[in-house]
């Protein structure tokens, strides 16, 4: 465990914050940056919709924790963790990000280059709403930010790393997309259409499917009802 304390750890949030619950990973990172201080060996990165440009971060990490909206086919707002070899299988099935270079491909490329994290954890939430352009997280998904962080902190504790919670929230270096301002300064629905393309967003390929039990799923039971 002594060597483990110096392991390079990357906490990475991916997704597009302009598409409602799709911004989950990025918002987890924002929350982490505002409320926790980590030792130098931990990097906390908002990966946005970047693909190939994230390779370096992935290659440099010995432990990688990814936060994302993941279509598990579970009930909206369900949090689920997946580890190591299973991660690529859950990622990138519908690659719509950077040049369609989904994050799965980033992992494959890192592997081809011969530098790959020893441990991988994906903390994903089942989205409730995606077709709300310019919108923010739905309450069911927003309520999973803190539980997702708890999962990550427990995982880090196993690696011998502790995060220090901050007594007061720190201001981000670039507060423009701060979730509070993003939500309050949003134009109303009359002046700004909020729907996506029906053919894409509502087609079977992109549908958020109704809950179906997954045989290998390990749903995490977090009760967020009544909090919002």
């Amino acid at each position, binding site marked *: 465990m002594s060597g483990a304390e110096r392991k390079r750890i990357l906490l990475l949030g991916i997704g*597009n*914050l*302009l598409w409602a619950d*799709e911004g989950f990973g990025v918002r987890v990172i924002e929350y982490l940056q505002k409320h926790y201080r980590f030792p130098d060996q931990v990097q906390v990165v*908002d990966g*946005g*919709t*970047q*693909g*190939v*440009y*994230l*390779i*370096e971060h992935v*290659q440099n990490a010995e432990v990688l924790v990814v936060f*994302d909206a*993941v*279509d598990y*086919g579970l009930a909206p707002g369900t949090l689920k963790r997946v580890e190591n070899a299973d991660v690529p299988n*859950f990622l*990138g*099935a*519908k690659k*719509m*990000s*950077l*040049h*369609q*270079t*989904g*994050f*799965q*491909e980033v992992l*494959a*490329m890192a592997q*081809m*280059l*011969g530098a790959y994290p020893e441990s991988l954890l994906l903390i*994903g939430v089942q989205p409730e709403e*995606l077709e709300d352009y*310019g919108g923010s997280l739905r309450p069911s998904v927003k309520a999973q930010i803190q539980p997702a962080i708890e999962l990550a902190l427990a995982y880090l504790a196993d690696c011998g790393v502790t995060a220090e919670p901050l007594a007061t929230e720190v201001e981000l*270096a*670039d507060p*423009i*997309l701060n979730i509070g301002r993003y939500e309050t*300064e949003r*134009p109303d629905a009359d*002046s*700004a*259409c909020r*729907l*996506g*393309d*029906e*053919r894409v*967003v*509502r*087609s*079977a390929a992109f549908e*958020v499917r109704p809950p179906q039990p997954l045989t290998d799923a390990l749903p995490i039971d977090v009760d967020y009802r009544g909090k919002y």
Partner: protein
Amino acid sequence: MTVTATPNGFHLNDAGRRVVVDPVTRIEGHMRCEVNIDEENIIRNAVSSGTMWRGLEVILKGRDPRDAWAFVQRICGVCTGTHALTSVRAVEDALKIKIPENANSIRNIMQLSLQAHDHLVHFYHLHALDWVNPVNALKADPVAVSALQQQISPSNPKSSPGYFRDTQNRLKKFVESGQLGPFKNGYWSNPAYLLPPEADLLAVTHYLEALDFQKDIMKIRTIFGGKDPHPNWLVGGVPCAINIDGVGAVGAVNMERLNLISSIIDRTITFIDQVYIPDLLAIAQFYKGWLYGGGLAGASMLSYGDIPDKANDYSAANLLMPRGAIINGDLSKVHAVDLTDPKQIQEFVPHSWYKYADEAVGLHPWDGVTEPNYKIGAKTKGDRTHIQELDESAKYSWIKAPRWNGHAMEVGPLARYVIGYAQGNKEITEQINFVLKTLDVPVSALFSTLGRTAARGLEAQWAAGKMRYFMDKLMSNIKSGDLATANVERWDPDTWPSSVKGVGFTEAPRGALGHWLKIEDTKIANYQCVVPTTWNGSPRDEQGNIGAFEASLMNTKVERPEEPVEILRTLHSFDPCLACSTHVMSPDGQELTRVKVR
């Protein structure tokens, strides 16, 4: 009778079998393409459709114009910096803000580094697989690859047989693990692939090398932008202070950082000269008989220009990346381009899923309207949520149809290079002549898919050289004592007029990009982006002119319609970017391109 002649010179015939490619992969965002092929598998009608609503403009309404760059850089994962730069330029134009020389040099270095970076990643990681067959590379003899490497790039030290054998073994392991990764979904037995195994292995080796190298180029933007992967920008300059004596200063760029940038620039120049350009020429040798894909190239091309030599002067004479328009194939005349002229740039929507009060007229972006209106034509096969075949006689795309003085135009590296060539730009002409001579092809060969791919490589080389120029300029300015990087005189909204408008432009890696905005009472009243893929991916207009993607596919022979590698090859040569993006992921089933032949 099903043959229609378009005003821009194409003969469309929709009688043959329809081939539908949806989505087109290895691009940014969502795109669908439909073509009709005749009995000899030659494309006689082409329809390109943006299948994603991109209403970024409307979510900016009412927001602080100084914030707009942060939103536009989230449109997609690649054009981040170039959208942000365009946005701050638009706000500065509206508010008459002058930026310091250092800010101009730093912005140019960031923009040029994006050009070099994006072109490199496009060539090796998005486009190469349209020409290179990684499965075939397993058959190569590493000794012969080594000889080939030494022949095409004698100065490249990484050329031993062992080096290529090593890559081949890694590739083999990867293929045998059944996990093809980025190489899956290819048509690897298609006769459209023409390279010998040795050239395939050479290119695959450099695919990996480029993947490793591109990480370095990115550091330039990280240092100047203060963070990675979404650098910071600032209306009035750049958000990085310069403190040359500083040691590890937070937020300031010191000498150590400047030296790091300088060394990355040198390595970028070397990589492009020793690897990218020789590979491009080697691959082109085998494909120079495949001269499909011209379309509007050489006929109708447009560039706004970019890279101002001196700060705050956006006139054509001060832009190092050429500005102008070519129409009707007349290279003897390059027309002047004015982004503020309401007659020159107009967007039309008769075939786009938007609503205008009068759709017979086009709107200049300052007066632009982005109101969605999704309805499908009577001849559509399928229904609103599951279209099997588009009806191109009605509305069929989320992309508007921008026109320059009424002409459909191609934008991008090839447009910039042809315009520079037509203007007699010395550097560009020398580069083009070198390629034409090496490949032994006439100028007309440029007007093709391969020409587009070649121009991108040449431009990467040019951009790397210009980074060196601006780095030297920045250093000499700093040494003379000028450390200013931002002008905040007009930062306070109280100093702004109540109603102003402005336009900002750049040449994004994939073509001309403009943002037009109006500011009223210190808030954004209207914001319109006309992006490169709006030009290239444009649907038909009121007169029936087809757009650049559509035109480029015309008359191409497709060897196997169910494996339309030729269509992908030509569309990829534009480096399409149909911004972006919901990327919710599913554990089951890969999203494969569906190709349907009816």
